[in-house]
């Protein structure tokens, strides 16, 4: 069993020095719920535990103090990583129990998707949240013996204070998060380090578009679970049919940032041929956190149409987002960094790690787009005197600086863009359609006000009744093309319009060509779904994605938001209050894909404000906006047609009544005669209209109207129309 983790986590270096200690010093546990064992004072603990006391160093001035500083330096190297993130867990998205729930799920799911993509497997992922409090309540009710879960918790060091629960706020409790994938699995030997060591991963040292970047994610979640419940992370993984599955329970020795395996069993049987299952017991707040999780799962399905996601929640029915395509995303290739994107420090680091003997070799092998000729040019611009080796650069800041300047001054081809894997127009559309299908049938969701910077409800439905009705009619499921059997005057579905559970959505997507910011290739995609049951009088829903991962927090601080707000949507027939998101029945999806997405912080919640990125988003939004404007204009026209008929019907009753009174006759036959003429008149007019200026979509005459020729003509006009428009452009 591991050393008492909780106590170690309370360690605070008495006199922090070095890289990040200033933060360590001020950062206190962010939540009152963090258990602080009595007597575990910082000083006492630190004094008591300094096992690797360094050999005494020379003491020039103040011997006593300097010796202490040396010790501190030693200790920091050992504990700073876990220590730092324990104290600063908000940096990783574990600010509070509701957000921690989301972050835990997100880290595991992101890893699963990454692994499947890298291995070329169509992902099938299960996300499960179990409410332990609720389950034990059920068991008690059934008279079954209670699982010794609390006991086990105390067993993990006994430092988990029994009164921790009294601090729990409403909805807070113990939950188990399970994420299972059908990915390649993890080699047995790697499992402990992956889940029990921070900053251990495969993605940090390479430039490739992936969800994970830092090698912190899942181990941080494991640490959070251990910190709040004392329970180790449980992992089952299997790498192939011929090989057995292994079950691990892993704790983190936070002081050493090393895994401690508390269980390692070979399973005789496991239902997955290959894949990984991660189980974490954490303190979470389902009541407040579920809306984040719901949104994350929905949006993950939206941005990953090649993935099937099963979602199991406490006290709720299982929800499945089926994959919308069997096509894996284009494989993102790994590239070397582009010279123009490298910062001075990084350049020195790369030089230190280089195995080349000369600078030309270093430049050519460490960077992309540096041919021998380009390397010569750079070196000429740097004008070094004498021979300079990469090793010298790593040590001499001035030398590194001149090379850095020379690189910036040299014209170098833009980086290759095959490292990017955008969702693509067609799949973005498919993703939006299946996303809308699920949220249309799932019914309205009550959303409390998110105190976090979360955009409001996932689906603020104008009316809940309509969507529930849609659920009762299974034959209506699935997107329909062609004029359905909707209202009395069913409009033909125009291009780009999808009928989803009885609601018409206009969907448009734009994928921009790849661009470069600071040497990093990136690509922007925008998709929108307009109409349907989105409310017309509220700001639009903005769905932000970075490398296919939904960004749910810090909307206001995000460069994506800035770009959307800066776009003048009034040009595209939406209203837009000054400096705000536009208002209208619309969801807007923005995806930024890059080998290195610049986030504003480690929790990867908001994209930094690079002008290149903002401009690309704006261009994509504008392009989408133009498609939207065309659609809205068409719809206004169709609305107008339907409206005019209803106007007549409205007034006929009044006129008939007045005429009847004046002439002393019954208004009923008069009304009937008016209605008869109404049909004839509108039909004749429609025919006339479609001959002169064919509307792309218009109401079709009623079925009982004589002469079925009119609708056919109209639809022919419709299909001819788009082509003509293309020619015009």
């Amino acid at each position: 069993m591991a050393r008492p983790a909780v106590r170690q986590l309370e360690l605070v270096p008495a006199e922090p020095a070095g890289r990040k200690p200033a933060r360590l010093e001020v950062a206190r546990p962010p939540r009152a719920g963090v258990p602080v064992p009595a007597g575990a004072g910082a000083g006492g603990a630190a004094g008591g535990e300094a096992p690797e006391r360094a050999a005494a160093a020379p003491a020039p001035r103040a011997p006593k103090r300097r010796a202490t500083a040396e010790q501190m330096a030693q200790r920091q190297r050992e504990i700073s990583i876990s220590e730092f993130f324990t104290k600063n867990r908000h940096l990783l998205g574990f600010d509070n129990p509701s957000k921690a729930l989301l972050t835990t799920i997100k880290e595991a799911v992101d890893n699963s998707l990454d692994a499947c993509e890298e291995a070329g497997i169509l992902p099938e992922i299960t996300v499960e949240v179990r409410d332990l409090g609720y389950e034990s309540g059920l068991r008690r009710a059934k008279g079954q013996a209670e699982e010794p879960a609390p006991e086990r918790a105390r067993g993990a060091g006994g430092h988990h204070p029994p009164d921790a629960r009294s601090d729990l706020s409403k909805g807070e409790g113990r939950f188990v998060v399970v994420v299972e994938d059908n990915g390649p699995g993890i080699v047995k030997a790697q499992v402990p380090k992956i889940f029990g060591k921070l900053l251990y991963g495969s993605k940090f040292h390479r430039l490739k578009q992936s969800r994970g970047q830092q090698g912190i994610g899942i181990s941080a979640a494991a640490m959070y679970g251990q910190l709040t419940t004392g329970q180790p992370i449980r992992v089952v993984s299997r790498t192939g049919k011929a090989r057995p599955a292994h079950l691990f329970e892993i704790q983190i020795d936070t002081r050493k940032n090393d895994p401690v395996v508390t269980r390692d069993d070979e399973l005789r049987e496991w239902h997955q041929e290959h894949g990984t299952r991660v189980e974490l017991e954490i303190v979470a707040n389902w009541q407040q956190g579920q809306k984040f999780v719901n949104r994350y799962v929905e949006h993950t399905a939206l941005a990953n149409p090649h993935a099937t996601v099963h979602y199991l929640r406490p006290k709720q029915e299982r929800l499945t987002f089926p994959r919308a395509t069997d096509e894996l995303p284009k494989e993102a290739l790994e590239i070397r960094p582009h010279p123009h994107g490298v910062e001075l420090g990084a350049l020195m680091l790369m030089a230190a790690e280089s195995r080349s003997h000369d600078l030309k070799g270093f430049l050519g092998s460490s960077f992309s787009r540096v041919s021998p000729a380009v390397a010569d040019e750079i070196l000429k611009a740097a004008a070094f005197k004498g021979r300079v080796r990469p090793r010298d650069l790593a040590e001499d800041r001035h030398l590194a600086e001149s090379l850095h300047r020379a690189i910036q001054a040299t014209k170098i081809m833009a980086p290759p863009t095959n490292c990017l894997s955008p969702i693509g127009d067609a799949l973005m559309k498919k993703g939006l359609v299946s996303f809308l299908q699920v949220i249309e049938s799932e019914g309205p969701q009550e959303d409390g006000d998110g105190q976090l910077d979360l955009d409001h409800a996932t689906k603020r439905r104008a009316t809940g009744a309509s969507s529930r009705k849609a659920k009762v009619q299974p034959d209506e499921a699935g997107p329909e093309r062609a004029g359905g059997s909707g209202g009395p005057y069913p409009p033909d579905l125009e291009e780009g319009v999808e009928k989803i559970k009885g609601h018409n959505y206009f969907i448009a997507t734009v994928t921009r060509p790849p661009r470069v910011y600071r040497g990093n290739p990136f690509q922007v995609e925008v998709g929108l779904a307009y109409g349907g049951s989105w409310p017309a009088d509220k700001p639009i829903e903005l769905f932000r994605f970075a490398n296919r991962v939904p960004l749910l927090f810090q909307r206001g601080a995000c460069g994506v938001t800035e770009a959307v707000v800066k776009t003048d949507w009034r040009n595209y027939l939406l209203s837009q209050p000054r400096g705000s998101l536009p208002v209208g029945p619309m969801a807007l999806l923005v995806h930024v894909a890059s080998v290195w997405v610049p986030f504003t912080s480690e929790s990867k919640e908001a994209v930094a404000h690079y002008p290149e990125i903002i401009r690309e988003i704006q261009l994509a939004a504008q392009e989408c906006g133009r498609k939207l404007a065309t659609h809205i204009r068409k719809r206004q026209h169709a609305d107008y047609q339907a409206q005019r008929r209803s106007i007549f019907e409205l007034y006929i009753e009044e006129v008939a009544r007045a005429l009847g009174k004046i002439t002393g006759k019954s208004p009923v036959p008069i009304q009937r005669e008016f209605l008869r003429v109404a049909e004839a008149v509108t039909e004749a007019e429609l025919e006339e209209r479609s001959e002169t200026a064919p509307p792309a979509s218009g109401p079709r005459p009623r079925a009982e109207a004589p002469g079925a020729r009119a609708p056919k003509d109209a639809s022919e006009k419709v299909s001819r129309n788009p082509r003509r428009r293309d020619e015009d452009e």
Partner: protein
Amino acid sequence: MARMDAVSKRTAQKIEKLAEQVMRAVKGGKNPFVEIPVRSLANVRFDPKKRIVQLGGQRQKRYFFNVAMAKKFMQTFLVSDACKELVESGKTTSIRDLYYITKHTIGETRQNTFEEQDESDPIIEDLEVALDALREELHLFASRKGSMVGPVTIRDSGDTIDLRRMGSGGWAVPSIVEENVIEFVRHEARYVLLIEKDAVWTRFNEDKFWKRERCIILQGGGQPPRGVRRLVQRLHQELKLPVYVLVDNDPWGFYIYSVMKQGSINLAYESMRMAVPDARFVGLSSFDKDKYQLPGNVAIKMDDGDVSRAKQMLAYPWFKEARWQREIQEMIRSGVKFELEALSRRGISFVTEEYLPRKLKEKDWLE
């Protein structure tokens, strides 16, 4: 149902005919319409012989199956229905009342048949011209304003009223002043003076100008309502009294005079019974500022609207006469206008004691 007189019977029949014609069209599968003479400047002619403004021959068709016209079509019949009921029951009501009678919510919508009175008033005028029936024949009257005093005795709905003894407020001129309501019993007036403004009229009344001058003074609170105009015409025609008009020196004042004289564009169809082509314009003239030595600081600068309106007036056929052209051009040239009250700078009773007597004595007016 009250017994109807011949006029009312005829009016009710006209409304019925209008409705039947619509029903016949619908029965025949046609888009029904109401034909309405156009009531705009484009369809107004100046008859130089009768010297009045008259409606031309242009008619417009108001169709029901036309998005822009459907509502008005419906409104036309709501008003028709209400008027027919008024006529048959022998009751008279105000046009505001009619607005409320015909206003209601349509079906299960939030739309009303009429949103404002501004919507129903023109429909009434449409109906008047479409049926060739006077408003009074439809048993409607407009809001009442205007007052009158003078050496004349009248009978109003059977009550004998001596307009020499009306105190400071005068007799309120009703909307309907036809022979069957108002009769002239006895008078010693020499002429009729119509004053644009209530305040100036009050000065004339207080100074007992009408007694001294033996004249009838009237005011219509700006643009005189139909009742006042009809009454002035009757005084002119039946009692053979000359009519003088005293208005502000601005385009609006001139227009009031022009309506008194030739009839208005909007009510051109009623010019025959309202206009007094012989009416004389006694002031304020654009040349009075010099003649009566008005200080410059009582002038008001004309704005762009005033100027363009004045320029339009130059083109009115009834202002084509050289003296009128001079008059209007002087106003445009000087770029200033004067209110009647500006005369008070020369003394509070300057207008009644010096200005008007001198004008009349010198025959300093325009026709």
